């Protein structure tokens, strides 16, 4: 690692040296022609400097990569970099003259760099898809896809044993998905009404003062890391629910769907309220005025006019919240449990897609077992589900925005 750092610094130094050299040369050339000659030059000396610097730096950088890849020694690589940089600098500064369009080339280089930056986001997506897809395909060679999505028995740990590898019973993902959706449903049931009402209250009822107090509270809720919510669920909410259930004569485990769902709901409240706030504020004031002028109360205006107008946007916001809840990891890892129960009862421990990915991929394991590959298959499912949700939500929200713009 240190070698890379040294080489990178050398590249930077060579670039700077080449820049200074060429800029000085360009200045000297302009000065030799006479006063005001700079105006006749297409490019200012600084751009000639940059042109030279980029040529040298790029050359040295390529040599550095080649050196690192081929395992050339540090001294030889350094020498080669130096030589390439010096040659580059001489070639570049040799072209310094009135009509040479150094600025155009430099700007072209900058634009290319900016394009590369934008493409990295695309490469990330491609990377995600490829890494999930390849391992998942390997998994589906061992476990048929249909068994995976229709099987009701999930016990990948036992499938580790020789005789069970690939047995369809062990990799039935139905309990994992029902658990995920159960918790998501609870989280949305908590966060949707609360988040929506907060947004409505803050935008339509609250005075300046209330808003000044409540907004930071919501922002803090949004800024709390998920692991903290997980700890809170495990340490406080779980036992509280358990104790509450005991007083009513029920027995509920500390880790349960309801615990994870409730806390996840609290976590998503700020998400729902800020998205709804945007959506509600996008409904033009003239709609509200029209309703008030007919003698409607605020709540009638909100529920019958503003809400009706904002509905597509709110649905989009809720879809994003659903996607968020399905992909949330830390709360469920700490508070939902790991037992793959196929149940709709929120007072039982359930497991989720993310919990299983964590369980299967943390710790040391060989990467060819069906067990680890199963995590990638689950990851692929998670990615597809959230992608579809986000995509639909974005389209709905975009259409909605266009309506009032």
């Amino acid at each position, binding site marked *: 690692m240190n070698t890379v750092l040294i080489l990178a610094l050398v590249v930077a130094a060579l670039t700077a040296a080449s820049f200074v050299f060429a800029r000085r040369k360009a200045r000297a050339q302009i000065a030799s022609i006479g006063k005001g000659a700079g105006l006749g030059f297409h490019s200012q000396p600084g751009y000639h400097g940059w042109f030279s610097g980029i040529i040298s730096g790029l050359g040295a950088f390529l040599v550095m990569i080649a050196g690192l890849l081929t395992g050339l020694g540090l001294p030889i690589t350094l020498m080669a970099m130096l030589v390439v940089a010096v040659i580059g600098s001489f070639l570049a500064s040799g072209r310094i003259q009135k009509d040479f369009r150094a600025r155009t080339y430099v700007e072209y280089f900058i634009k290319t760099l*900016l394009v590369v930056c*934008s493409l990295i986001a695309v490469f990330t997506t491609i990377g995600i898809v490829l890494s*999930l897809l390849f391992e998942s395909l390997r998994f589906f060679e061992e476990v048929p896809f249909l068994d995976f999505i229709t099987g009701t028995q999930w016990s990948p740990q036992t499938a580790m044993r020789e005789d069970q590898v690939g047995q369809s019973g062990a990799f039935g993902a139905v309990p994992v998905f029902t658990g995920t959706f159960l918790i998501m449903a609870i989280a949305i049931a908590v966060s949707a009404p609360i988040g929506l009402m907060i947004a409505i209250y803050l935008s339509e009822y609250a005075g300046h003062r209330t808003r000044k107090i409540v907004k930071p509270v919501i922002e803090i809720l949004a800024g709390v890391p998920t692991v903290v*919510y997980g*700890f809170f669920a495990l340490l406080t909410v779980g036992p509280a629910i358990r104790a509450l259930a005991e007083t009513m004569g029920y027995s509920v485990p500390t880790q349960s769907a309801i615990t994870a769902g409730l806390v996840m709901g609290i976590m998503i409240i700020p998400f729902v309220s800020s998205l709804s706030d945007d959506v509600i504020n996008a409904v033009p004031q003239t709609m509200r005025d029209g309703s008030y002028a007919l003698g409607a109360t605020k709540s009638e205006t909100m529920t019958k006019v503003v809400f009706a107008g904002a509905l597509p946007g709110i649905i989009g916001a809720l879809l994003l919240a659903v996607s968020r809840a399905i*992909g949330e990891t830390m709360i469920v890892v700490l508070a939902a449990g790991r037992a793959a129960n196929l149940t709709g009862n929120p007072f039982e421990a359930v497991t989720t897609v993310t919990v299983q990915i964590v369980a299967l991929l943390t710790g040391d394991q060989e990467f060819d077992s069906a067990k680890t590959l199963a995590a990638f298959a689950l990851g692929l499912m998670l990615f597809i589900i959230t992608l579809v949700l986000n995509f639909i939500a974005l389209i709905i929200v975009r259409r909605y925005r266009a309506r009032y713009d």
Partner: protein
Amino acid sequence: MPTSDSIHASEFALKRLKKRHAKERRFKAFGLLAIGIAVMALFWLLSTVLGNGLNAFIQHDMTMDVELTESVLDPSGVRDPDELRKSNYRRIIQNSLYERFPDVTDRKAKRQLFDVISSSGAPNLIRQMVYNNPDLVGQTLTIRVPTSDDVDQLLKGNISRDVSEDRRKISDQQITWVDALVETGEIKSRFNTGFFTNTDSRDAELAGIGGSFIGSLMTLLVTACLAIPIGIGAAIWLDEFAPKNRFVDFIEININNLAAVPSIIFGVLGLAIFINFIGMPRSAPIVGGLVLGLRALPTVIIATRATLMAVPQSIRDGALSIGASHIQAVFHHKVPQAGPGILTGSIIAMAQALGETAPLLMIGMVNFNTEIPNGITDSATVLPVQIFMWAGNAERAWVEKTSAGIIVLLLVLLLINGFAIWLRNRLEKRW
């Protein structure tokens, strides 16, 4: 409205109006209730964390005199540091304790006595001292060692003295010793600096966030170096230079989608590409930083674009009209105007990355590290993952540590976000 003959003033209408206003009040009450629930939830969460964690910043230490007997530590008398490392420091500590309580003879009682202090912390402390300075052998030192977590909890009042002996982790005999030591001032409570400087440990009284905090800093450094320049570059291109075509639309949709991809997926990406395919080291801040960098990238891009779009086009056009090239107009005029907003957005994205846990579990940052990482390729963990690892322990002392770790994390996040808000208010331009 008695004077009017309007249908709106009929008895029926007025009765209905009453009901409508009642409904209005109910609706408003629901709004207040929703706010109340959110505020209460935050209050509940914070009080849980503060209530459990504040005590961890105080720890009980015991001051003791230890004689570094040559016959025990260095029978050969060579003072070879490597040999001295392996010596029996446990014995030294035990001897000191038995001397302090000479009437303890029973084997079981002796073991209980030793358990009053941190049983691995104390020997390690002298081992390090002797290793650094072998000349200490033969001298008598006064050292401060942490008490065991059970004694610490007893003195903090978290272990009740009233329950029967077999139901608590500390015996009546031990309580007597501890009370005696407190009486003489040998055991005292002090600010727990070890919590900030120590690495992870199997013993709660020795565990600290020093290692994971450094790990977080290193990871964040990599994240910032990746996400901020690339994110800003991408945003500038999309805002100013991108042509209007299908491919650019695709890039935009892709960025928006990427922002909503569950973070754990980025961890899977890191595992598959960076570790398994490229062969980078597991558990290292470099991989963690890259993963979080890719995760933060869409956030930075979206925040930067929002600020760039808020800069009036007239500023750029003004520059173009005096003969600046497009690049010059953008970099000399538009980007500097958007600077504060970009800075704020980047800082907030970094704060988010600092709290991120799930993707780091995938790349092996859940590991037991007793060394502070020296570089970004060393095995390390980060603060949120450290919290996650501690959160699994139900014992009182660990709950305290976990909560204290959370307090530190939340404070750091509060500081970073507060700084970003302060910066925005100070520098932000309104158009």
